[in-house]
């Protein structure tokens, strides 16, 4: 999953990003690769996107640049787009223990099928917390979603925003701590510490989550892979290399 990182299937990948280096390209790339590389005799592939902020039009536009027609895939049932706030408006008077996000979980369960190779992408969980959903509800929802995906042997990809003041360590909020405990791998999208640059858009570091056997080549922050954004995706290169870019 997600070239060039070669991650296995069936994991929970936590992707954290910052405003200066958004992880949109990772989500789009994983969706496109999942839907594109379907081998003829293998299990049918399906992708479910739970979106809080981004509209379907942007997913379609970016997929179209890599020749993946999302409308066709939706019609054939291999792409499902669930707009979270359309189904569950932000609660105003809910008690902390109320399962407000339950309808979303039910929607995912109804579409998940064990016989298919599924990728579930959850976009923008942090925004749910900021606009008023209870932290307890969100963490329970994530745990339930993780359990459901494990049962169906689906891969779960969660994106979380991290606030970092420019000169200090990242601020970890409670939601991040809960998600990190559940994750198998933690992919960090970092901006360059020396500021903006035209040639390099940011860096990607890959860390192991708690309690996971070591299978994949990890990338600590000191040897993070750098990337440059293009219109349709990203180009990865080692720091200080890539003749065409630097």
């Amino acid at each position: 999953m997600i070239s060039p990182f070669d991650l296995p299937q069936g994991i929970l990948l936590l992707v954290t990003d910052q405003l200066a280096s958004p992880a949109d390209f990772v989500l789009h790339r994983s969706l496109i690769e999942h839907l594109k590389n379907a081998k003829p005799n293998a299990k049918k592939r399906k992708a479910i996107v739970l979106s809080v902020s981004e509209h379907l039009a942007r997913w379609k536009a970016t997929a179209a640049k890599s020749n993946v027609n999302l409308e066709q895939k939706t019609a054939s049932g291999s792409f499902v787009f669930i707009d979270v706030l359309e189904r569950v408006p932000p609660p105003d008077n809910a008690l902390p223990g109320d399962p407000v996000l339950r309808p979303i979980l039910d929607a995912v369960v109804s579409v998940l099928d064990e016989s298919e190779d599924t990728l579930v992408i959850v976009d923008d969980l942090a925004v749910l917390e900021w606009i008023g959903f209870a932290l307890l509800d969100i963490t329970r929802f994530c745990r339930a979603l993780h359990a459901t995906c494990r049962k169906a042997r689906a891969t779960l990809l969660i994106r979380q925003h991290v606030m970092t003041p420019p000169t200090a360590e990242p601020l970890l909020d409670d939601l991040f701590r809960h998600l990190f405990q559940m994750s198998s791998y933690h992919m960090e999208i970092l901006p360059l510490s020396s500021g903006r640059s035209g040639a390099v858009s940011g860096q990607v570091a890959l860390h192991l989550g708690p309690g996971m056997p070591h299978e994949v080549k990890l990338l600590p922050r000191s040897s993070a892979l750098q990337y440059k954004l293009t219109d349709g995706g990203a180009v990865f290169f080692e720091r200080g290399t890539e003749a065409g870019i630097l």
Partner: protein
Amino acid sequence: MSFTRKSKPASSSTQAAPFSTGLSSLDDLLGGGIPPSCSVVYTAPDLHSEYGVLLQKYFVAQGLATGEKIYVVGSTAEWVNECMWTPPNATTVEEADEADKLKIAWRYESMKQFETTVASSSSSRTFDLTVRIPPAVVSDALAKHQLVLVDAEAPARVLSRLKDVLATNTVPVRICIPSLGGPQWGDLGPQDILRFLHRLRALLRQYPQACASTSLVATVSGDSYGNGPGWHQRVGWVADGSMTLSAFSANPALAAAFPSAHALVRLHNLPSPHSLVPASDRFSVIRGASGENNISLKCTRKRVVFETMHLGVEGGVGERRTEATVTKKKAEKRVARFEGDAYDF
């Protein structure tokens, strides 16, 4: 400034033209203007300057000048009357021919003057801060329902009113919110503001013929508003484009170091509605080829301009670098006026 020539942003046939903000330099920073279906937020943390509101006035003035439909939320007709306008006889300014007066080394004679910003383009009018909008224009726009004032009540009600408006209009619509978080909005907490901006963006995606330009009031613009630092980032995540205008008036050391700038501009994120790379990264001239120029805002008597930020020339603040532009004839006329004066001592 970088010398690599950038091609002009070609508006693709499937995407509508961006909305001009009224300032050609700000349009350049945003990659051509505010793209349709995008929401841009300005934060201005200095309590004693109002650059955010000033930019909103330009936005409204541009909309009135081009005849687009504008919805102003939370302000009155008196506020709109304070907007700027084009001067009545817009003649081209004659530039003093300084090349004759200033002797420079021959090898630099063919170089053009150092430019810190873009020239004004044809799409945005050159608004003059000394000219107020004619009241007739405003009352005419109100009567024709081209300009509509929406009261700032509970955010949810404002959003439902905007939704009704957008559902019935297919023309391009500008939504201007000059002081989100101000007293007319009631007691808004950080969660209410983020929820409003997030829902506003979702509304714009649903009705992509509109765009929104919002300014947060100074009291809710600081980075540590809410629980701890990171407010600017949170606002950036719920909007398409966001920038902070930190005025130098609060920091005398900075004001002395950059004498020709009045505020530092920090671009947190820029609109990219249909691609991964914002249009500004490719097309902005002020941001430079690598997008890393420091940008400042200068507010002179007649105009506001975003430009690249540079340290002052050695030689201090008060030293003039060029000849005064008053010509000899004008100087004579001035003397002649005083001669017959009654108070001639």
